């Protein structure tokens, strides 16, 4: 009963993500007027920024689950935190890809060290890729769960510290700061499109997270049953 209920919730979430993303894409391409300076190519903003915010949300969610694990010592939080980091890394990579495309269309280079978001996500990508290394090289069990949780908590401290560091580094190494001309003053139609896209991305992340978690739980359950049969 509870499984089928949960399955229904999954379907609803996935459907909501699909509808919102479809709506967001249509709005971004056909409804919102061209940006004054950047023109048509500025429309990638409606994908790049929501994806980046979703990645932050995933990392934050992972840290919350990590805190719960250390607090309660309940093992299920380990899997939840791990799955959230997993989703965060996927959205992080998408942020790097869309950011890179935007950099190419705006400034003619696939990579610009002057773009804060891009540099921050590169650091975070390296940091969370090491998280997977840590998990693969330590034997599964309570110790690994603790270590992963501590590392995830370091991640949420690293995000603001790295952001500050990147701002400080701009004054130092890169006198030219690259910014886009829209982010500060969104008009009504821009804001609406942005919010629809953001909701779509968050719903997509939530749907993927729920699915992945169900899969991983099934996997663990299957392994336990197999062990019990032996």
């Amino acid at each position, binding site marked *: 009963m509870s499984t089928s209920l949960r399955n229904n919730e999954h379907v609803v979430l996935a459907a909501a993500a699909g509808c919102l993303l479809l709506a967001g894409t249509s709005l971004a391409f056909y409804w919102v007027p061209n940006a004054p300076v950047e023109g048509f190519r500025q429309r990638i903003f409606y994908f790049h920024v929501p994806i980046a915010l979703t990645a932050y949300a995933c990392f934050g969610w992972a840290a919350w689950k990590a805190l719960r694990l*250390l607090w309660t010592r309940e093992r299920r939080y380990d899997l939840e935190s791990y799955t959230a980091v997993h989703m965060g890394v996927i959205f992080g990579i998408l942020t790097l890809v869309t950011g890179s495309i935007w950099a190419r269309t705006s400034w003619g280079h696939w990579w610009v060290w002057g773009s804060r978001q891009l540099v921050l996500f590169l*650091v975070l990508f*390296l*940091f969370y*890729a*090491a998280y997977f*290394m*840590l998990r693969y*090289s*330590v034997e599964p*069990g*309570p*110790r690994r769960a*603790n*270590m992963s*949780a*501590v*590392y995830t*908590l*370091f991640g949420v*401290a*690293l995000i603001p*510290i*790295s952001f*500050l*560091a*990147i701002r*400080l*580094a701009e*004054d*130092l*190494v890169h006198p030219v700061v690259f910014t886009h001309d829209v982010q500060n003053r969104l008009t009504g139609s821009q804001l609406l499109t942005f919010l629809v896209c953001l909701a779509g991305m968050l719903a997509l992340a939530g749907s993927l997270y729920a699915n992945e978690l169900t899969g991983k739980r099934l996997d663990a359950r299957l392994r336990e049953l197999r062990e019990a049969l032996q």
Partner: protein
Amino acid sequence: MTYLGDVFALARKDLLLELRSRDTVPAMLLFVVSTLVVFHFALPSEASATAETGLLWVALLFTALLGLVRAFVAEREERVLDGLVLAPCDRSAIWLGKVIGVVAFLVAAEVVALPAYALFFRPVGWELVAAVALADLGLAAVGTLLAAMAAAGRARELLLPVLFLPLVIPIVVGGVGASATDDPGRYLAFLGLYDAVFAILSWASFEYVVTE
């Protein structure tokens, strides 16, 4: 007070072990000086001051890594770490004792590295010394915690650098900024902020890394 007594006893033990075996500090010294010589040849002759300070920071970072990889070697033999964890002292004292040891080794390496840098490249100002001192605390605090994590893994010598480098990028920013700009105050304050945030985090979470 007993807490500080524990920390002191543990740190003294690390220094005693190093004095007896002389494994780590001489290697760090040689490594940092060799790296500076390598950098002389890697840099173009008209390199800027920023490039030279940047390379000094890279040298210091990798020297710290060299020391950290060995930080828990003595504890891993004969499972001594389990023995320490079982003792009724606060587990964070184990971390703090180790941090003091690591800072001592780093300072020993830098006492040679900074004059060598002054000799080979350019004079060393007070800002650089202050930045190095602040950076040592951050490197040792974060590095000791990660070294304890890596010690439980399979490929620990490889795992530690991978865990360590993304976390200490801000230290490089602060260090280079403090020693290569006209306004070192901001960067020194940033290093202080980094030290405070990550030292508290590491101090509070070490127990979870060494227990189940």
